[in-house]
Structure formats: C-alpha cells, structure tokens
C-alpha cells in the first residue's frame, strides 16, 4: 500500500480548520457535521438549500458549481449522492460527472485534503449501478490523490440512510429472506464519524480505498430482526425470495414509475455484498476501532461519542441534534 504525502491539516494559531461537507443534509453528512464540529473544525455545509444567514453554501451535484465555496477549506468531505435517480444515464451524469467536477474544483481551490465517501457496494465484480458509479468516483478521486472511504451499512440512533429504510421496512408483515449470501458489513455511525475525523487529520492518507466497517458480516435476516427489535416490533416473518426475482419485480415497478421504498439497484447491493472490508488496517494504525454490530450501543439510551469514547447522551443522537442547529454559523467547537 502506498501513501501520498498530503500533509495533515495545519492552520495558523487561533484559526480553526475548515471542513466543507457536501450532502450535509443527508444522514451521513449530518452525522459528520456533528462529529467534525465536536472535533474542533469549523464546518461549512454545502447543501442545496442553504439556510439564510448561515455559513451554508449552495451546492448541487446536478450543476456541481461551488462558486468559491471551497475557498479556504482545509478538508472537503464529499458525501452527496442523489439517490432519487433511477435511470442509469442520469445517475452517471449527476453522481459521477458531478463528483468529478467537484473534485476538480477542490484541486483548483487548493483544498489540501479531500475525503470521498464511496460505499462497500463498490467492489470488484459488482453489478450494482450504485456500486459501479461509486467505483468510477473512486478512480477519479484516486487520480487526484484523494482519499476514498467505503463505509459499510451505517446504523445508529439517527436511523437514516439504508439502515433507516430497512428499519422502517420491518413494519411490514412479511420480509424477504435472500439467503445466506445476503449479508452486510456494518459500522456504528459514531465509529464512522471517528474514522472520518481521524483521516481528515492524518499526516498522510492511503491511495487505496479504506473500508470503514467491522470485518464480521451480519446476515440480512439477522439485521432485520435486530432492527425490528430495536423498533419495538415483534420478530418479523421471513419468506425465502430469490434476490434476482425480487430485483426484476422492483425494476419493473420502477419502469412503471411506481414509488418504492427501496430501489431495485439497492437490492442488488443487499443481496450481493462485498466479500470483505478493504484495507481496514489503515484505521487501526490511526487508532480507530470499529465495533461489531450491536444495537445495544446504537440506541439513544446508550451511545458512543464522536471521539470514540462511550458517553451517555452524547452520541449519535446528539450528533444529529447538532446538525439541526448548524445553519446558523460555520460551526466552531468551543
């Protein structure tokens, strides 16, 4: 594994390092907004709807125009991804070409460190369009000397993203069982945030994708059962379903423009996961531990803080709360 000599964030005395976060209104982005704020960064949210009077700046992947929003930024964290798109050309146009344009602007603006959020769905051999688009983003990021991270299924008390969707689906009377091959690598949202903060401040970052997930995969049915229990629901009833049949059905409904809680493409990622967590040793060297799947630590009653230390009431829930308060100023940690 090689590393690039990108220096860690070094600011003049009294100046806080500035992190710009795209997709800051989304699940992962809002988690990171809180974590970076807690770690002493001034946080600049790059969002489609900036709050008036805040330090938010407008950014939309569809146009990918930053218009000076990256000036003075020490760390760019790129989380934005438009999950509403289903046509492959649209996905590529917005999420891949938009990202490439953003990364070029980061280079032009002299941003010293960029962390590009990819996905564990991006792995050699994936047929998932989401995974393929993330791989394309990874190649572009790497060509620009940027750090790519592949988070696993991020879960925590904020319950957003795919984990949140799956948790909501446990309200259904019957759930699909895609077999033993369907499994996920998971990461608690606070561990994810800790890893990102550590990578932002590291003296050098690797040129290979860094997986942020516990190396022990969790079965899909086990995940859903745990999510149901966490939501206070009875154990779900599972029905064996061939993944490709389910994919075909969902895809047909998408073509018919029927609104769905899960995209057909996402189902591929659930049914055909990555074989392993790549380069997880990088995090170990940075002193970041990723804990195994357990909802006992994810709930709001007992969570883990952004710095990785256990703290009651100062974990994922409070991170999300901080995100809600952010639009007022570039957030500065006291």
């Amino acid at each position, binding site marked *: 594994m*090689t590393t690039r000599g990108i220096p860690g964030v070094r600011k003049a005395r009294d100046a806080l390092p500035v992190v710009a976060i795209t997709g800051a209104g989304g699940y992962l982005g809002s988690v990171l907004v809180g974590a970076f704020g807690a770690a002493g960064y001034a946080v600049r949210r790059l969002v489609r709807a900036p709050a008036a009077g805040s330090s938010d700046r407008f950014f939309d992947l569809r146009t990918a125009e930053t218009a000076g929003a990256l000036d003075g930024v020490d760390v760019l964290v790129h989380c934005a991804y438009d999950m509403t798109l289903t046509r*492959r*050309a*649209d*996905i*590529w*146009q917005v999420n*891949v*070409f938009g990202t*490439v344009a953003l990364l070029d602007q980061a280079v032009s603006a002299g941003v010293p460190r960029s962390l590009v959020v990819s996905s564990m769905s*991006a792995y*050699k*051999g*994936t047929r998932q*369009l989401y*995974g*393929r*688009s993330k*791989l*394309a983003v*990874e*190649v*572009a990021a*790497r*060509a620009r000397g940027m750090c790519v991270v592949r988070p696993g299924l991020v879960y925590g008390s904020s319950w957003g993203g795919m984990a949140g969707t799956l948790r909501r689906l446990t309200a259904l009377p019957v759930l699909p069982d895609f077999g033993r091959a369907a499994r996920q690598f998971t990461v608690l949202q606070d561990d994810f945030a800790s890893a990102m903060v550590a990578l932002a401040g590291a003296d050098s970052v690797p*040129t*290979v994708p860094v997986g942020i997930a516990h190396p022990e995969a969790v079965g899909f049915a086990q995940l859903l059962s745990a999510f149901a229990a966490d939501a206070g629901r009875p154990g779900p009833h599972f029905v064996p379903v061939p993944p490709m049949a389910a994919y075909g059905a969902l895809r047909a409904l998408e073509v018919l423009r029927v609104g769905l809680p899960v995209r057909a493409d996402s189902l591929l990622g659930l049914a055909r996961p990555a074989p392993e967590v790549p380069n997880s040793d990088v995090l170990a060297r940075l002193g970041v531990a990723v804990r195994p799947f357990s909802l006992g630590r994810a709930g709001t009653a007992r969570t883990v803080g952004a710095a990785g230390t256990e703290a009651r009431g100062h974990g994922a829930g409070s991170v999300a709360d901080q995100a809600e308060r952010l639009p007022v100023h570039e957030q500065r940690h006291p």
Partner: protein
Amino acid sequence: MSTALIIGSGPAAAGAALALTADPVQQVTVVDVGATLEADLDTSVGRLAATSEDAWSPADVALIGRQPVHAGRGVLPEKRAYGSDFPFRDVGQLDGIAALGDANPSVVSGAYGGFSNVWGAQVMPFSEATFDLWPVSLGEMQPHYRIAMDEMTLAGDDDDLAELFPLFDQVRPLPPPADRTARVLDRYRARRALVRSHGVTLGRARLAFRAEGCTRCGLCMTGCPYGLIYSSAHTFDRLRAEKRIAYRSGLLAVHLEEVGGEPRALVRHVGTGRVEQLAADRIFVACGGIGTTRLVLGSLGRFDRAVHLQESVQFVVPAVSRSPVRDPRRTQDFTLNQFNLLYDATGQGVDLCQVHFYEYNPAFLASLPAPLRHPKAGPLTGGLLRRISVGLGYVPGWAAPSVEVVARRAGEGKERLPALEIGREGSDRWPPMLRDLVWAMLRVAPALDLWPVVPMISLSAAAKSYHFGASFPHDRARTATTTDRRGRLAAWDNIHLVDASVFPVVPATTFTLTIMANAHRIVSETLGAPR
C-alpha cells in the same frame, strides 16, 4: 568511465540508451542483429520523402505501399514495412523456434528498431491502478514516461481517456479525424453519461507520430514516407549520429554469464557464425519478451520446463454503422488507429479491455470476399465501405490464456541459443472478459451507431499480439524467476533485463511506451545506485 552493453535495438533498448547516454561517464555499446530495409526500397522511400505528394512516382508508391500478407486463417495479415518483411525476417534469431498449433513463430525481430518498424504507434501509460500490481508506482514512473513520450512525440487529444491515462501535458494535436470517427465521437459526447455507465469510454487515438508533418497520404499502415511514425531506430540513428553510442550490427546474443561479478555476453556473427565474447560493467538485455526469455533460460540452463508469459491477447472486431459516411476511398485521412474504445470490466481502472478502431485503408478492400471486389459489385462494396470500421482489441494478460514456452537444450556449450517451443496454455475460446466487452459494445451500439459484427469477431493465435511478457516479473525480491526493480535475477548482479520480460503484468492498454519508460527507469535507478 563505465562501460555498458545494450543487447537489442527495440523500444526497451532505446529507453535504456536514452538513460545511459544522459550519463557522460557511460561508454555505451549496442549489439544487434540489425536487419534493415532493402536498398532498392530504401531508395524509393528516399525519393518519396524528398518530394511532395503530388510529385510522387506511382511506381515508388506501389513498391512501398505493398499490403499486408495473408498469414493464416483467422489471423491478421502480416504487415509490411515499406514493402519489406525485414521486421519479421529470420536472419538467425528465429533458428530453433517452433510454434505449436497455430502459434505465431515470428516472435523475435532481427530488425534494427525491432517490431517498432511495424507497430500501430498507439501509446498510453498504464493506469495508476495497474501499478498496484507492480512494485513501482505511477508516480515513480512518471518522469520516465515523460522522457519516453518526448522521444516518441505524442499526438492525441485531452479527452476522457486522460482520466485513466494521463497525458503529462506533452500532447500535440492529431490530424482531423476521419468522417466515421468524427461521427462516433460526436455521438459519444452527446450520450456520454449513458455510454460511461456501461463501463465504456471513448477517446481519440494517442499516437507516437509527428502529426504536424502529416499530409494524410494514407500510407501509414505500410510505412510513412516521411518517417513521421516513431520507430526506436530513430532514437538509435540520432544517438549514432551524435556519436553517443557505438553500434554493432550482425550480432546475435547467445549466452549471458557473470564471472567474478563481471557480466559477459557471447554473441554470434550472423554472417560468419563466429562467436565473440563481450564484457562490460553492466549489460542491459532488451531482446523482446520472448527473445530475452529464451536467452536467459539457455544461459541459466533451465531446460524442459514450461515458462508462462502473460499475453494481452488480441482480437479483431469488425463494426458496422447504420448511417453512411462519404466513400472513404475518395477522402484523405491518416490510416493509423483513429479512436479507442476502452471497457472497464470491473470499474476499478485495472481490468481494462481496449479496442483501437481503424477507418478505411486499402487492406479493408483486400480482405473483403472476392465477389465484393468484383467491379460489378461496386455500389454494394461502396455502401459497405461507407459503413465499416475495424477494431483491433486486446484483453489483459491476466484475463487471457498465457503463452507457454519451453526451452530445449540445442547442444553442448554456450554458443547456441536453446531451441524454443511456443504454444498457448489454455483454450482458444473467448476469455470471459471478451464476452463482457462484446455485451457492453452491444449495449452502447445504439448510442454510438457502432455495431460489432459478433460472428466475425476472431481471437488471434498465441503470441500474435506481440504484447507478451512477465516471464521474469519485477517483485519485491529477486529470485530464480523474479527480478528486482532493476531487472536483476538472483543469478546475476550486473545483468539487467529491461524489456517486457520483467513486467509484473501485461495489461491490454498498449505497452510499448511503458516498455521504453520502464527500461529508462531501470537504467536510471541502476546508475543512481551503488554497484
């Protein structure tokens, strides 16, 4: 002063020579079989080069414009260089080489400039991800790529291909594209997101030629009369004229050894059979992937054991378009590769298949079925030529059958190269990655109006691509079968292998530029390191 001996005159040798001659303390000698163009053809080329195209003698044009020669069923015809077969001719270097099945027996060139006399001139660096499979990074290669590109003179466009294959700011503009190429690339730009989402990227050719001098005479494929297409012979011509190297032709290296740390080469005079021993402080071996493998196996006495070389297997893919362009026989275009289609099988910038598309040249007409060449078939033939392109594609060496070579002892003593058997390990069926590529081409065909004629896709025979190597790959440590970063096997301290034999992998992107750059890197690192 230090003495250095280079064996060979192909692109690897040129890369080594460039690095060595940059060091004023090096006395450089190049030994080479050194076959050259016949005198009468050379005279014709000289006459054409001295005049403008409108003053060319038709007899001279016919003489040097001889079309490729049929080389067997289902394989590409063998090219001619200025009407001559001298790059392929056996002047002793092919003695004892036996091709099994339909494998290509002409795997070692005895020509001055080697196979770069007949190459397609397509040049690209390897992708950054490809170097993950090497103990050398793209960053470490970059200065050497720059020097090689500067020597070759690169013409191309800064297009989507640059995302994976950096241009290093050294590109000059290409001549205007042929009609079909322009149309395909226009459609690609208009539907780029869709095409890219299928893993397909298009871009113009990247060519090692001095495009600014191109008159679009259409003779690229049989030899540019103005010598605009790079050959490593150009580098050696210059170094010889500047008296920076001593060049000795007519010599075939037959044995290597080190005695007390001093490297020695036994060379045989191809004219007389006399054997001579040459010694130097260092020897750089650049006989080509199979030529070097044979020389090393014989020198180290490794007989009767199969050695596998990766080959970026070649295939031919004809393509048709629904919308016609002007009759290409009545237009003037350069006839080298016009555009590239790149397919990223796994989306990581490493499992790449590449297809070089060629637009019309007279070989198209010659390869049509006889009825279509009949004058009465004129309208039909014209309609076809207005719609066809031909792609020459490559699959990465790690995703394709390998070339298997076995050295056999050819007698006692050191004065003979071993006999060599060449065959293909594995089946002749399409590699899975080629099937994936064809599917991808079919998916993007409506967007590009470029439809692969699937039944006519043909896989070339073993070793026919000329993109083979990795018999003694660079590795972290040098052993009996692997070389260190400086191309040294465990058996030798001062004999360096510098050609594709030391490539850890052979990707499908063209590899001549990397051969030259890597040879330059090996020599540069060697000169910068203590003995």
